[in-house]
């Protein structure tokens, strides 16, 4: 124990550790995993809360407005005020709706968005479940998220909601294919489906990032990710100028809050995944540069050189910012244009680039130079 900790506190800590290690192994495992899950969940929900605030601030500044500035210093209390407002509002269930599905639909859209975090490596040791088929797990869960939207649209028993659900379902199914193909490229480059291994394959400075050899796939993945989350300019599922609010037109109070949470959780997830697949995840861009190596011992500046959660967070924030940027700048796509972009542009681009990657692997250039086979 360090000197500045009083004796009785360190005694308590020793006692606590002794009790912990005397427990059966599975209880230890369960405790640790539960804490890991709780930490990730709370972190994601806090990020979601503040990203709603930052979205309004960012869009506000782009439109030369102030944005929220009334609740707390700089308006930082705004997300909590919004949450409390939504929590105390009445949840109205339409009388002609399919009640059970109506209630369960928001949860079905939120759970996949949160469950995907199980396989995401936050740094070199913090991952809840280090499974080999991690990338497939991510794909499987993101594809399940569409049920919440479809069921919400259908169970509401309203034409607007059904139209929104239809649009959203077709859009998500279309863009999932392009996303999956883009990830085929990532797994060709890393040689692994494990997200931890994918990050490890990109350590050693930003020249190792898959962003450069797989640039077209990165663009396709990122835009498909924006389309998957139903965000502007692909937000036809809730296009308020045509179908009021789309699939969540009849949702109010907590039920709406959960949809909102799911949408933002998905945005955070897609941002993090893009960072992991193409920007080296938690790896630092300045690793492996010899002249920067001495910096790693200095307390704060050293964090620049060493990889860790802070880099993942920073990269995630960068992509979150582009989400807001898109929303402030682009007009909404027309529905047929969305379909055209997904099927006729993105899928051919990914297929061509996978072929190019095959050639690159054959001639051992880029990330495949070390194969030596």
């Amino acid at each position, binding site marked *: 124990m360090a000197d500045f900790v009083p004796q009785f506190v360190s005694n308590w800590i020793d006692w606590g550790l002794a009790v912990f290690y005397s427990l059966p192994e599975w209880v230890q495992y369960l405790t640790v995993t539960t804490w890991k899950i709780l930490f990730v969940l709370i972190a994601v929900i806090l990020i979601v809360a503040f990203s709603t605030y930052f979205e309004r601030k960012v869009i506000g500044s782009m439109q030369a407005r102030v944005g929220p500035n009334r609740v707390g210093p700089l308006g930082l209390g705004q997300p909590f005020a919004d949450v409390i407002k939504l929590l105390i509002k009445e949840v109205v269930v339409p009388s002609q709706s*399919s009640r059970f*599905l109506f209630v369960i639909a928001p949860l079905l859209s939120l759970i996949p968005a949160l469950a995907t975090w199980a396989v995401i490596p936050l740094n070199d040791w913090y991952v809840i479940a280090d*499974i*080999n*088929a991690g990338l*497939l*797990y991510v*794909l*499987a*869960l993101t*594809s*399940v998220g*569409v*049920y919440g939207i*479809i*069921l919400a649209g*259908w169970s509401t028993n309203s034409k607007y909601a*059904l139209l929104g*659900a*239809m649009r959203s*379902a*077709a859009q*998500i*199914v279309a863009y*999932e294919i392009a996303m999956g193909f883009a990830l085929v490229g990532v797994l060709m480059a890393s040689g692994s*489906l494990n997200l931890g291994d994918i990050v490890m394959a990109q350590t050693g400075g930003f020249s190792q990032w898959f962003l450069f050899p797989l640039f077209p796939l990165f663009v396709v993945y990122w835009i498909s990710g924006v389309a998957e989350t139903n965000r502007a300019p692909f937000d036809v599922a809730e296009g308020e100028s045509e179908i009021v609010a789309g699939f969540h037109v009849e949702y109010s109070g907590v039920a709406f809050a959960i949809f909102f949470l799911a949408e933002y959780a998905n945005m955070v997830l897609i941002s993090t995944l893009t960072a992991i697949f193409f920007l080296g995840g938690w790896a630092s861009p300045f690793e492996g540069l010899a002249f920067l190596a001495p910096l790693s011992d200095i307390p704060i500046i050293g964090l620049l050189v060493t990889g860790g959660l802070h880099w993942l967070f920073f990269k995630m924030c960068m992509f979150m910012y582009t989400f807001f940027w898109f929303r402030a700048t682009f007009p909404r796509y027309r529905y*047929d244009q969305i379909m*055209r972009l997904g099927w006729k542009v993105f899928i051919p681009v990914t297929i061509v680039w996978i072929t190019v990657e095959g050639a690159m692997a054959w001639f051992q250039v880029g990330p495949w130079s070390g194969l030596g086979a």
Partner: protein
Amino acid sequence: MFQSVLFYVFAIVLLGAASGVVFSRNPVHSVMFLVLTFFQSAVLWLMAEAEFLAIVLVLVYVGAVMVLFLFVVMMLEVNIEAAKRGLTRYAPLGIGVALLMVIELVQLIWLRSQGVTGTSGFAATPEGYNNTKALGAVLYTEHVYAFEIAAVILLLAIIAAITLTMRKRPGIKVQDIAAQVAVRAKDRVRIVKMDAEKKQ
């Protein structure tokens, strides 16, 4: 012990969901029960340490096939009365298939009880065993022809489905993106030079 308790819990939910598919009156509820059934079977496969198959089951069936199913079922007006009349007509066939499956299952269980083990059931896999890698190693070497033939058949099915729905309709308005992009200002705007009007 814990594992078998889990197995029975999941198996019971699986059977419940599977009967829900058949017994629920609303077709959308049926589809959702089917989704639950797929999920439960994926969980059972996970317990058998077939993680690749489990995740692919969720990815392909739950994530893609059932979404399209739900899509179609939601759009169709299903006539329950007509479906009920069909029930008695197709009942003998259904019962026949069900009987066949029961016989097969009983045979399988009987064989197992005799101590005949065809494959090593839920055998524990060695440490560091990678399900996905193992499958890939076999799929792309030993079974590569079967794999490729399956791929070609699927491609054929896609092309066939597209050709069935492709019909030329006269007077249809289609956007030509290339032409739109290639448009220049002088194609659309005509600048007319004219003298300034005289002061009245």
